[in-house]
């Protein structure tokens, strides 16, 4: 499952961060690396981007970019 498919309000653990170039580096720099827990907080009123919570802070992410983040099978 990728982060964009994860339902709002649930949590998952990152298993891989795909993509390349500046976007991928930015995601890694922000702390989205394998083994990190992410929680999907909400989706913007127009349907995109989404708001996620990692490492104790909140981040916006476009659905296209969230597709690059692969999750381990969802835990509670």
């Amino acid at each position: 499952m990728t982060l964009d498919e994860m339902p709002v309000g649930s949590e998952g653990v990152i298993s891989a961060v795909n993509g390349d170039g500046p976007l991928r580096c930015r995601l890694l720099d922000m702390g989205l690396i394998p083994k990190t827990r992410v929680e999907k907080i909400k989706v913007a009123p127009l349907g995109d981007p989404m708001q996620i919570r990692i490492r104790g802070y909140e981040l916006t992410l476009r659905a296209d970019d969230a597709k690059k983040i692969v999750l381990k099978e969802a835990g509670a």
Partner: protein
Amino acid sequence: MIFALAGNQNCGKTTLFNALTGANRHVGNFPGVTVDCMAGDIKGEKDCQVVDLPGIYSLRPYTQEEIVARDFIINNKPDGIINIVDGTNIERNLYLTLQLLELRVPTVVALNFMDEVTGNGGSIDVEKMSAALGVPVVPISAVKGDGVTELIRRAVETAKAKRLPAVTDFCSADSQVHRCIHAVIHLIEDHAGSIGVSPRFCTAKLIEGDPGMADELGLDENERELLEHCIVQMENETGLDRNAALADMRYTFIEGVVQDSVRKPRESREHARSVKIDKVLTGKYTAIPIFVIVMGLIFFLTFNVVGAWLQDLLASGIDLLAGVVDRGLTAYGINPVVHSLIIDGIFAGVGSVLSFLPVIVVLFFFLSVLEDTGYMARIAFFMDKLLRKIGLSGRSFVPMLIGFGCTVPAVMATRTVSADRDRKMTILLTPYMSCSAKIPIYAVFAAAFFGGRSAIAMIVIYLTGIIIGVIVALVLKKTAYRGEPVPFVMELPNYRFPSLKTTGLLLWDKVKDFLRRAFSIIFIATVVIWFLRTFDTRLNVVEDSSLSLLALIARFVAPIFRPLGFGDWRVVTALVTGFTAKEAVVSTMAVLLETGTAELPAALGTLFSPLTASAFLAFTLLYTPCVAAVATIRRELGSALKTLGVVVLQCGVAWVVALLINTIGGLFA
């Protein structure tokens, strides 16, 4: 001594900068730094300067801000780094800290928002953290000023003693990453020494695949192959690619530091409050209606209440002063030409632009409050989808919206658009949002030519501006700003009360800067226009304005406007004077047509047909904004040549659109 102040966005960096420097600040001019950084003298210390670097998350060379910060530290070799860290969001903030430590410069970490951490029952063991990072850690609250004196003392002490960070290894001993890093350090140590940059920093950048680093170090083929070999081996052993492996190493180290020294509160009050506020402000059904109300209120307060009141006050002040000077000069019997220069030229021209200052200030004030509270980031969040199609992000929405009020604060507000590419594109597009100073022009023409349908005419005008703006954006996206769009990965900080001091200082900086920079351009433009209006070719004062130099020039360039349907020299003159301030278009026409403003709509009927009037309106909508706006664009783009390009582009677009209206409309007439 020079200190660099570095930190993430939203960690209170500007507030700390103000607390460190008080009012002794100036725009720093440092060699090799393209974006200007603010610099200031540190309070209570002799010969100590601090430079406020852009807010960044990493030292990769991908964004303009990162390049500026990195180049400043590497090329200007500051004596020390003050690294501000948000104590409530410590893991991600320390990620930058580790990269700064790799640069091997005397560093002090300032732990900000410590009052929030302790207020929520959390705690940070400063001694332990300091030992783990190998640099002094000072808890502060930048807003309250707590700990700032201690921070200054420790920073100066560390820099004076040239005490480098004591910890150098962030990789766990004997790990694959550790082996790779040390092999590479060994390989490049001499090269790094010869260019005077820390080998550890170079190594990290080489492993991350930093494009310029291998060339900078002058590695030969052999060394490059060895380097690649080390990295590939590490990738194979860890199962992570090079970038992920290094990020993983840093975050693993940070997790260890945090585990030992930080007791996190369960949930902070500030966060709980933010969640509640967000339920409404970014709620599915409430976000956009509330946004409309907030922006409506800002415009209402600016144009109908505060700004308007201040504007009237300032305008009557200028009138009063002009009156006194007028009488004084008349009584003194000064040469009438000089009298005209001072009263009709300087007072009238500069005064009319200055009377806009209150509107600019008030709008900019509201904008900084939106930014400082954290609401601006939310607007960017829910408006992002709308702007993505034209190659921008939600960050550009509010500056563009402010453009409907006044282009000057709108262009200033693009500072909040953190990505350089997006920022420049926003600056180019903002003038297409029709500013409020053009309303009098629309009103007069709508009354003259569209009578009962003036409201529809107004809407069509505004929509035309937006549509042309979108087209220009799409063209820019495909041409000048092709490249990769900057990733929209934005932090949503907790809502905070804005610091009045920070907002006040920012406002004061902006006003001072605007007056200093824009004033000279406005002054020159008004005097030039006055000169052209007052004299003829033999430098005699003209009685009849149709004989003036300005009229001569207008007649000369009028053929350019003939295909658009308004080649009359009086119209062209009005457009030229509109460059000083847009409301001058209407008053100039009234003067040249020898009517009062009230009779102007009737008189315009002799110059325009409804069709050519439409073409003219399109032209005024789209052509170059006033001199104050151009001066601000020049300031924010940092290039006179690019600014000239913007002006030419705008006039070109205006001309083409007006031509299309006149030609296509002519086919149906």
